[in-house]
């Protein structure tokens, strides 16, 4: 029984990572109808940007600031009148405020990156064959992967995580703080995405723009802006995913997402490409399924059964577990 729960917890932790990336895939599919093969690499690249801003920052090139030493955002301990402005510090000097700053800046960069990618690369192929946009995302995939390899080198680098203390003991199983954090973030993002699409006017506009651009324009929706927003937000979600995946998988490397992306796709499709809930549930289902196959069937069968099951489930439910049934277009 202990083994079962240990595998359950372990599968859920890995699955949360799949779910996070799947969430970004679902977001972009819902907002733009594009299956984005570059999602993983966009996440990887923005995570690398986060890595580079979390390194000691040389400020000596700003003469008037009078700073001629390195500033490390992660260990930055600002104080006002002796009162610490930072949240608790951790073993290797990381402060959570520093982490938060890095996170916010990185997500902002990813947001801009996503917007620019849509404007400059995806826009020209819009309104054509849907495969065109998919091939463009494949191009972005190759481009970003190679650029990261060129800029940062192929060797993995350690990545900061906000919670890295002892594992939390639930009695039946133990889970590392980081895994719990990832699960919580996945759940929060899932709810946020759901609320965005179902409860906000902007989300409704984004959905409408993806469904029928010209009718949306007649409703006063700037469809181009909606598509840009869709890519930007998906990139931001992907960036959060990347920043949680990197420390969970012992560091960041240009090939960080090779494995995750495929399982992320599987998770998104399993849950239904248009369902935020489906993405996270699908991710956890894939993760737990793999763990269970390893435990009770045999590890050689892990991929075979995982992907075989996905085909089988799709045959029964063609739009995934939580996806809306397809409307046949005449």
């Amino acid at each position, binding site marked *: 029984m202990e083994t079962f729960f240990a595998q359950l917890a372990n599968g859920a932790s890995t699955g949360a990572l799949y779910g996070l990336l799947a969430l970004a895939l679902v977001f972009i*599919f819902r907002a733009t109808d594009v299956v984005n093969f570059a999602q993983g690499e966009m996440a990887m690249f923005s995570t690398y940007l986060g890595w580079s801003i979390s390194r000691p920052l040389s400020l000596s090139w700003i003469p008037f600031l009078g700073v001629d030493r390195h500033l490390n955002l992660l260990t930055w301990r600002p104080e006002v009148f002796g009162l610490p402005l930072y949240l608790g510090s951790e073993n290797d000097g990381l402060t959570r405020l520093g982490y938060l700053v890095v996170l916010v800046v990185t997500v902002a960069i990813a947001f801009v990156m996503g917007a620019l990618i849509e404007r400059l690369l995806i826009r*020209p192929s819009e309104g054509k064959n849907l495969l*065109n946009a998919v091939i463009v995302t494949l*191009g972005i995939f190759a481009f*970003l992967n190679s650029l990261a390899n060129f800029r940062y080198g192929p060797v993995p680098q350690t990545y900061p995580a906000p919670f890295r203390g002892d594992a939390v003991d639930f009695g039946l199983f133990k889970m590392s703080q980081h895994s719990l954090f990832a699960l919580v973030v996945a759940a929060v993002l899932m709810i946020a995405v759901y609320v965005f699409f179902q409860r906000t006017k902007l989300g409704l506009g984004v959905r409408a723009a993806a469904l029928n651009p010209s009718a949306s324009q007649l409703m006063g929706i700037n469809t181009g802006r909606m598509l840009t927003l869709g890519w930007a937000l998906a990139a931001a979600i992907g960036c959060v995913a990347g920043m949680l995946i990197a420390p969970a998988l012992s560091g960041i490397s240009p090939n960080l997402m090779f494995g995750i992306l495929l399982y992320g796709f599987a998770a998104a499709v399993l849950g239904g*490409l248009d369902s935020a809930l489906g993405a996270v549930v699908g991710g956890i289902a894939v993760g737990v399924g793999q763990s269970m196959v390893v435990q009770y069937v045999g590890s050689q069968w892990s991929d*075979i059964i995982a*992907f075989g099951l996905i085909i089988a489930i799709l045959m029964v439910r*063609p739009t995934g577990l939580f996806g809306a049934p*397809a409307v046949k277009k005449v």
Partner: protein
Amino acid sequence: MHQTAHYRDGVERFVPSPSEAVLLAALVLFCWKLYGGTENDAVAGLSSVVVVVVAWVVGVSLRAALNDMRWWLLLGFLVALIVPWLGANTFQVGVMSQVCVFALLIFGLNVVTGYTGQISLGHGALVGISAYIIAILSSNYGWNVFAAMTVGISVTTAFGFVLGIPALRLAGPYLAIATLAAALIFPPLLKLDTFEDYTGGIQGLHETRLSPPGPIESFLKEHAPSDAYQNDFQRRKFAEESYLYYISLAAGVVGLVTLWNLGRSRFGRAFVAVRDSEVAATSMGINVPLYKVTAFGISALYAGFAGAAFFLVIAFVAPESFDLVNLSINPLAYLVIGGLATTGGPVVGAFGYMWVPRVINKIATVSGDFDKLQGAMTGLLLIVVMTRLPQGVWGGVRRVNALSWQRLAGDSWAWAFQRSPLFWAGLALAAVVVVLIAQFIGTVWAVFALALLIVAPHDVWSGAGDVLRRLNPGWKRNASIQADVT
């Protein structure tokens, strides 16, 4: 985006947009950075300008010359026949054989994705099944290779029908991922302990390559070009590679002709009807499920032939050979680049599939700095082709085909003269700024920025034009062309 102007005669004409001008500038800059040594900067920069200008002129002339496609087909076939004597070495002949192999695979993808509109990412597994069955039968059981091929291709076709079953229920991305899952299951299956005795597990299976029958061998050896093939080993290789090349070529040509016929047959029209609207197709009396599964079956037939040819040419199968990117995703990408639902597109795609990585590798290894940027260059190429030529290379060729040389040349000149001196000054200034930025931010970011510039949509540049127009109200935008638009 191209600025395409519609003239009164209804012909769509190609007018280079400002972003294309920037593309040229970017190319010059890129070549300059690429070849840039300390002493030869000026020479290298100048020569790259010359190269770009020559390429531009050649391109304009080619458009005109490509007017009649039949001549090109005939010429192409004749050239294909003498490829072994054109190549400088056996390696190049071998690559041309593989062009035929992967053309077969891409033909198959074209049937299922191009004509019928069902995205399949599982074709790598089909090629693998075919190649593996042939390998197992011929090396483990000592079958005759051609007998093994018959079995391999038949079984693969059957598997194709099975792979088509999800297409009955699934659509779009769901089908893509389901077929992708099928491709992902294949390599771990090969490695299972249960099958290891047959499949050779991770070590894979070798096969001695097919050598030409005696008379053919001696003929080929005798007629090998003597300057390239001096010793006996090289001549033997020449005979072997040429023999395999002709077999692959024959398969490829048969594939091409059948694809061409298929495209115009009742089947082909039914496939297209299914792709365009299933409801409409049903109402026309087309049995949609039957045709969908048949499309997968036919496509698997091609993939089976590709697997057989793959086995002959590579003579080695291992689980790692059938990875997702190389045999499932890349062929699809190059199919779209070549041109979906056309006959010529897959041929262009197959050439691209084999030669683009080699050419890019050549460019990348000119300077040690760039060897890791091969992927970036490939990615950039995909993006540029897809955004500039949405119908693929073949679609682009078709489109410019109708235009005459004089008009095109005239347009280009007219375009150049319509720009004000201010425009050219601005362009020069922009080039200088880009160079300065490149110096300041370093190569990676320069490449990144250039990539963005190259694929930037037209209105980014016309936006810059708008700003200039504000400053210079007398300057009319494309005055004469606008007036022509009806």
